[in-house]
C-alpha cells in the first residue's frame, strides 16, 4: 500500500484529495460527512462579505448521452454569515485534527478587511488560508475574485497584506481567465504566498435555449457567463499546471501547487501529480456523484502507485514535468506512422473517412473477401494520429515509430544554423530536398 499522505506547505493530510472551495464544502455538516467518507481535506467555501444568490444557478453541458461533461455556475461565495462559518470551521477542525482544513476567503480590497479575516480564520485552528482570486462572476463585479486575479499588481498587493500578518500557510488560487497564467503566479509569490492553487472556473456560457432563445440556465429571463468546471476543463488545468511547473521562477521558489480542474477519477489525479501538483482539489465530480467517490480516488491511485513501485506521493510528484517542452524543441526527425491491425479492425471505416476527408489521404481500402480492409500507405503517412484517435477499437491502430533516416534536429536548431530556412520558402524547399523531406 502506497503512502498517500502529503505535507503541502506545512498543511498535512492523510491523502492528497481535498474538497475544493465550492458548494460541497458549504457547511460543517457536509465536511463532517466528507471526512467520514475519507476525504483528506477540504477548502471551506469562500467566506466573506454578505451576498444574495439566485435560482437556476448551475448550467451543465451534456455531451451525447453523457451527463455533465461540465458544469457552470453563478453561485456566489458562502451566503452564510462569517461568524456561522467560523464556528463550524472550529468544530470541524477540532473533530478532525488529522485532516486539512483550509479556509477560502475573499473580502473587500482593503488591508484592514483582510487582516481581520486572517485573524478570524487563524483563531478557528484552520490549517491554511486560500485567497479566492478566481471567482469570475458576481464578486468580480464588486472588485473581488477574478477582478483581483486578472491584475498581477492587485494580486501581489493583496497577497502581501495577507502574508504579512498570517501565521498559517497562504495559498493563492489563480484564475484561468487570463492570457498568461505565469504572471499572476509570479505576483502571488512576490506578495509572499506560501503556495498556489489552480484553476478556478473558466468564463463560459453553457447554452442557448432553442425554444425560448434565452441563455441556459435562465435566471428570470436573463443569463450570463458563469464559472466552467468539470471533466471538460481538465486539459486547460493541466496546461496551466505544467506552465507553472516548468517556469523557473515558480519551480525555483519551491512553493507547492494545489491542482484542480476536472479531477474526477484517480487517473486524472495521477496526471495532476505527475505534472507537479502537491495536493488535489475536487468539486464537480463530487457534485455529480457525492462524497463516496473518494474511495476509488484513493484506492485506484494507491493500486496504480503499487503497480508502478511508487511508495509515496513525492515519488511521483512532477515526474513528467521534464517532458514538458515547446514546439521549437521537438525533434523534427522523429517519425511515427499509423498501423492498423486487420485482426482487430471491425471495418467501421472511421479512420478511412477521417484520413481521406480531413487529413492526408493515406489510408486505402484494400479489397477483401468481406469488407474492404482500411490499410495505411505508410510511405505517405505523416503520422498525424487522427486515425488513431477516431478508431473505436482498443489496440487496433497503433502509432509505430519508424526511422526517418534523418539526424535529430529541432526548429530552434535550424533557426540557429540556417535561419533562412525559417524565413524563406525557397530556402525551405532546398532544405527539404537536401534532407529528403517530401510532403505529398
Amino acid at each position, binding site marked *: 500500500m502506497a503512502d498517500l499522505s502529503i505535507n503541502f506547505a506545512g498543511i498535512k493530510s492523510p491523502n492528497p484529495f481535498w474538497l475544493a472551495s465550492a458548494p460541497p464544502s458549504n457547511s460543517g455538516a457536509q465536511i463532517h460527512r466528507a471526512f467520514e467518507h475519507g476525504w483528506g481535506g477540504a477548502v471551506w467555501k469562500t467566506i466573506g462579505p454578505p451576498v444574495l444568490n439566485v435560482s437556476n444557478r448551475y448550467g451543465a453541458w451534456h455531451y*451525447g*448521452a*453523457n451527463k455533465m461533461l461540465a458544469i457552470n455556475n453563478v453561485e456566489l461565495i458562502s451566503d452564510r454569515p462569517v461568524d456561522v462559518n467560523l464556528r463550524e470551521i472550529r468544530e470541524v477542525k477540532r473533530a478532525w485534527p488529522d485532516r486539512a482544513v483550509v479556509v477560502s476567503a475573499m473580502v473587500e480590497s482593503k488591508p484592514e478587511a483582510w487582516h481581520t479575516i486572517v485573524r478570524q480564520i487563524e483563531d478557528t485552528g484552520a490549517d491554511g488560508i486560500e485567497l479566492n482570486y478566481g471567482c469570475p462572476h458576481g464578486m468580480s463585479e464588486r472588485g473581488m475574485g477574478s477582478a483581483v486575479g486578472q491584475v498581477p499588481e492587485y494580486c501581489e498587493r493583496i497577497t502581501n497584506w495577507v502574508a504579512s500578518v498570517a501565521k498559517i500557510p497562504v495559498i493563492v488560487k489563480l484564475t484561468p481567465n487570463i492570457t498568461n497564467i505565469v504572471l499572476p503566479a509570479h505576483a502571488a509569490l512576490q506578495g509572499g504566498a506560501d503556495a498556489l492553487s489552480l484553476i478556478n472556473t473558466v468564463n463560459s456560457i453553457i447554452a442557448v435555449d432553442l425554444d425560448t432563445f434565452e441563455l441556459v440556465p435562465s435566471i428570470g429571463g436573463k443569463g450570463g457567463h458563469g464559472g466552467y468546471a468539470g471533466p471538460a476543463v481538465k486539459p486547460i488545468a493541466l496546461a496551466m499546471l505544467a506552465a507553472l511547473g516548468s517556469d523557473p521562477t515558480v519551480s525555483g521558489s519551491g512553493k507547492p501547487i494545489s491542482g484542480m480542474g476536472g479531477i474526477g477519477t484517480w487517473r486524472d489525479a495521477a496526471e495532476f501529480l505527475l505534472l507537479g501538483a502537491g495536493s488535489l482539489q475536487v468539486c464537480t465530480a463530487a457534485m455529480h456523484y457525492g462524497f463516496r467517490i473518494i474511495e476509488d480516488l484513493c484506492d485506484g491511485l494507491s493500486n496504480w502507485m503499487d503497480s508502478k513501485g511508487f511508495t509515496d506521493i513525492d515519488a511521483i510528484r512532477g515526474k513528467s514535468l521534464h517532458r514538458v517542452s515547446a514546439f521549437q524543441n521537438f525533434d523534427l526527425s522523429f517519425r511515427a506512422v499509423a498501423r492498423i491491425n486487420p485482426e482487430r479492425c*471491425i*471495418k*467501421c*471505416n*472511421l479512420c*478511412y*473517412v477521417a484520413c481521406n476527408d480531413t487529413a492526408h489521404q493515406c489510408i486505402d481500402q484494400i479489397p477483401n473477401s468481406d*469488407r474492404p480492409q482500411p490499410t495505411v500507405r505508410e510511405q505517405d503517412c505523416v503520422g498525424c494520429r487522427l486515425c488513431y484517435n477516431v478508431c*473505436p477499437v482498443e489496440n487496433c491502430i497503433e502509432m509505430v515509430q519508424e526511422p526517418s533516416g534523418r539526424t535529430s534536429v529541432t526548429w530552434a536548431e535550424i533557426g540557429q544554423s540556417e535561419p533562412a530556412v525559417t524565413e524563406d520558402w525557397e530556402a525551405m524547399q532546398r532544405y527539404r530536398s537536401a534532407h529528403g523531406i517530401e510532403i505529398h
Partner: protein
Amino acid sequence: MTNALTEQFPPLTTHEALVEANRCLYCYDAPCTQACPTHIDIPRFIKKIATANMLGSATTILSSNLLGATCARVCPVQELCEGACVLGSEHKPITIGRLQRHAMDHAFNHGLNGFLKPGPATGKRIAVIGAGPAGLSCAGELARRGHHVTIFEKRELAGGLSTYGIIVLREPVEIALAEADMIRQLGVDIQTGVDIGRDITAADLQSQFDAVFLSVGLGASPSLGIPGEDHVLDGLDYISRSKLDPASLLPGRSVLVIGAGNTAIDCATVAKRLGSQQVTMIYRRTEREMTAYDHEYSFVKNEGVSFEFLAQPVRVISENGVVTGLACVRTRLTPHPEPIEGSAFILPADQIIKAIGQNRPSIAVLLGLATERGLIGVNADLETSTPGIYAGGDCIRAKGAASTVMAVQDGKLAATAIHNKVMANG
C-alpha cells in the same frame, strides 16, 4: 407472462434512444446500410436521433423505405442490419430496429412537415393489386413521382400481412393501418374488398391502366390431406383473428401446432400467451431443417413451447365433434421424411393449428403469366412475361426468404421500372 395482445417491446424512452444512438459509431460506408434490402442510410438516421433531429431521422428512413414503421418491428434484424453491425464483434450490435421504430413513432405522432407529397401529375394511371407491403411501397413511390395509383385489395383492410399476419406482439394493427393511411395521403386510392376476376377483370386492368403491379402475396394454406382435417384451425386465420377479433379465440388447454416455420412459431406464441397450458409444435424433420429464424426458435422455446420433431400427423381424433388428439407416426430423414412403420402414437390435444406454408397465388394463371416454381416469373425490372404487368413481394419470391423488407424493396424497384416505362411511352 406478458399479454399476447400488446406489443412485446415498449417504445424506447427519449433517454434510451439517446444513449443507444450515441453508441452508434457512424460507420462510413456502413455495413448495416448495405445489409438492409432497402438500403436505409442507417448511421444517418441514428445520428439524427442523437442530435434530436427527429423529423430528419424519420424522413431519412422514409426516403428509402415507406414502410419503415413496419420494418422497424418485423424485420429479421439479426439477419440483416443488426447482424452486420460492426459492434456485433463486441456482442452488442446497435438496436437499429428499435431506434428506427423510435423515429417512425415520432413521425406518426408529430407529422412529417410535408415531406411526403405527391409529385406533379403525370396523367399516368397505375393499378396495384394487393395492399400489402410491396403494393403500398410501389404505390407510394409511384405517387411521389406524380402518377395516379389505384390499389385493389381483396380484403377489408389494407396492410396485407402487416395487418393480418404479423402477431400483435411484433406489430399492432394500428401501425399497419397508419402506414396505409400515409400512402393514402399521397393521393393513392385504396379500394378494399375488390377481387380481381370477380369485381374487375384482367382485361379492365390492362385497358384502364398504363401499368399494373401485382403484389398479391401467397394463397391459402395447403391441405394436410389427413382425415379429420376440418377440425384443424388455419394458422394464418388464427393469427388474423388474434389481431382483429381476439375475443373469438378460445385458448385450448393443450394445443398442437403443425409446422415449424415462422408462422407456426407465431401461432404457438399466441396460443401460449392466450393461456394454453401445453403448446407443442410438430415437425416432420428436425430442428436443423426448421425454416424459422434461429432467434424465433429461441424465443418460442423461452415461451415454454415444446417440440415434437420427426413426427408426422396422420389423423385428427375427435369425439362428438370435439378434438381430443392427433394420431402421428415417427419419421426418419432419407433425407426426405419417411414414416417409420409401426411407430404410431397419439398426442392428446383439444386444439390443432396448421401452419405449413401457403399455396401459390392463382393470379398468374388468371392473367396467363409465366411462372417460376409456381410463383410469378419476373425479369430484373420485376416485369412479368406480359409487358406492362409487374410483380413483387411474396408472389415472386421463388428463392430466398420472403420478408416484408424484401417486398418493400420490390415495390420500390418496380415503381422505378414502371415510372421509366410509362414516361418513355409518352
